[in-house]
């Protein structure tokens, strides 16, 4: 499982965000993940999954993401950039 494999990796923001992605989308295959791939290109990235991503990132990085900020985060890279700017 990807979850176990990633635990061995360094605890970087990049790895953590990727880990969160696979927690929120447990059916996602690794080949389907791409940092720049947009929300509407993911089959299951609906508004609720978006909330889960935001919540998990807030908990993991101890940051707050407002609704206004959350609306503008459309890809894994957007999430990573936001975390890097605000942690």
């Amino acid at each position: 499982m990807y979850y176990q494999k990633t635990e061995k990796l360094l605890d970087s923001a990049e790895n953590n965000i990727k880990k969160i992605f696979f927690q929120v989308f447990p059916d996602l295959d690794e080949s389907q993940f791409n940092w720049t791939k947009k929300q509407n290109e993911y089959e299951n990235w609906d508004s609720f999954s978006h909330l889960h991503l935001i919540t998990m990132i807030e908990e993991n990085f101890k940051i707050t993401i407002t609704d206004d900020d959350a609306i503008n985060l459309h890809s894994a890279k957007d999430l990573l950039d936001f975390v890097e700017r605000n942690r």
Partner: protein
Amino acid sequence: MNKIIDYFRRNVENYPDKNAIIFGGQSITYRKLGELVDSFSENLINLKKGSTISIFHENSIDFVISYLGILNSGMITHLIPINLSKEKIQEQLEIANSKFVITSNSLLDRMENIKSGCKIITFQELDIQDCELSSSYDVEDDVAYLIFTSGTTGKPKGASVTQSNTIFTTENIINILNYNNADVNVLPLPLTHSFGLGCLHSSLFVGSTLILLENATNTKKILEHIKNYNATTLASVPLTLTKILKEHENCSDYLQDLRLVITNSTSIPKKTVMCYRDILKTGILATYYGLTEASRSTFMIFAKPGKETSVGKPPEGIVIKIENKVLDERKVGEILIKGKNVIKNYWNNSEADKNIVDGWLRTGDLGHKDAEGYLYLDGRMDYVINIVGEKVVPEEVEEVVRVLIDVEDVVAVGTKNEMYGEIIKMFVKKSPNSKITKSDILSHCIKNLESFKVPREIEFVDDFPRNEFGKIERYRLSEKNE
């Protein structure tokens, strides 16, 4: 026989030398209890029939004497939970229009500075004959006792439970759960609550022996009482039953010979049902659904696997219907109850009386039935969370998280959100020494819940706000977030 006291008197005659109550190492026979009840009643001889007398007293033999003595005199008993705040005691006394409070020496200081116009006396110094007594209530003779329920807004409502309500309910309990004079019943529940009081009635009605405990905090003590007195039944809330399983690996040694474990309907975990079914050799685990206003409206006996989350069916004389827009009782809707167990009205509360129309009590509880008519509870109407039109019953979310071994208990509430209307906030009480993180819980929710039911926020808490019965006050958690 049409009064509670008549059933007791019958057993004073039938079993005079049998122990009626055992409490704190002391025992009292039916004959002695009958004598003390009569003496107590003589103190009330000058009071007008139908007057209200309050009891603010711990579980004890004195409590039982006071309760039966008041009923014996044709008075109405107002039962006050001992963990009530001073303000709430005062509020209840004012609404009840009580003239006397009977209390204990240890609780006397809790009554200080209460301005309700009623006289406060301890059981030990009881001498009511000297008091100037008057009463002008226009009440039906039939009311036996008053128990106040907090309601969802926190405003107390007095449920006026009649003699006939009580006799109907007690006979149902006895017949369905087979209480008999050979029973020895362990009761660690407050007698000020409908559950505990119903167990007292059942025990006295059949002439069995009641092993009364102060409370349920010490589970070891409960088990020891079961063993030492060769008990046949145990009545306890689901939380205590689950605690016994968690705290005592050898609990089956104490419990296995019980013929009955009775609990009530506040979300008994499926695992607990299954464990007790395994532990009890030939005995049964049973539960019921009821309110103070409609005591024991259903009964459920968990005799065989299946339907572990049901609260059962109503007995004869009680009808339950589910009211919803789709006119299908198998879909979730409000539970309405009609029957001889339902109170006629609340105590001086015309607003609350609107909940009882043509004998039908609107419970505010949500439920549904299965194809065989078994009732299942789905939470409270007031707490349904509406997330962009998707309705979420908090209990469903809580149940998923509660199975985690690191979680002791959990409460989900809706909080307002500009985008979603409402979102779910979850309050979690961790098990002792638990290292579980919020991410662990969220991840578990994502795997096990539909997307819109996953909480948006999690907060760890030491405990939840609770009412005098230990019931979690959800509305206070909701208010916190408004």
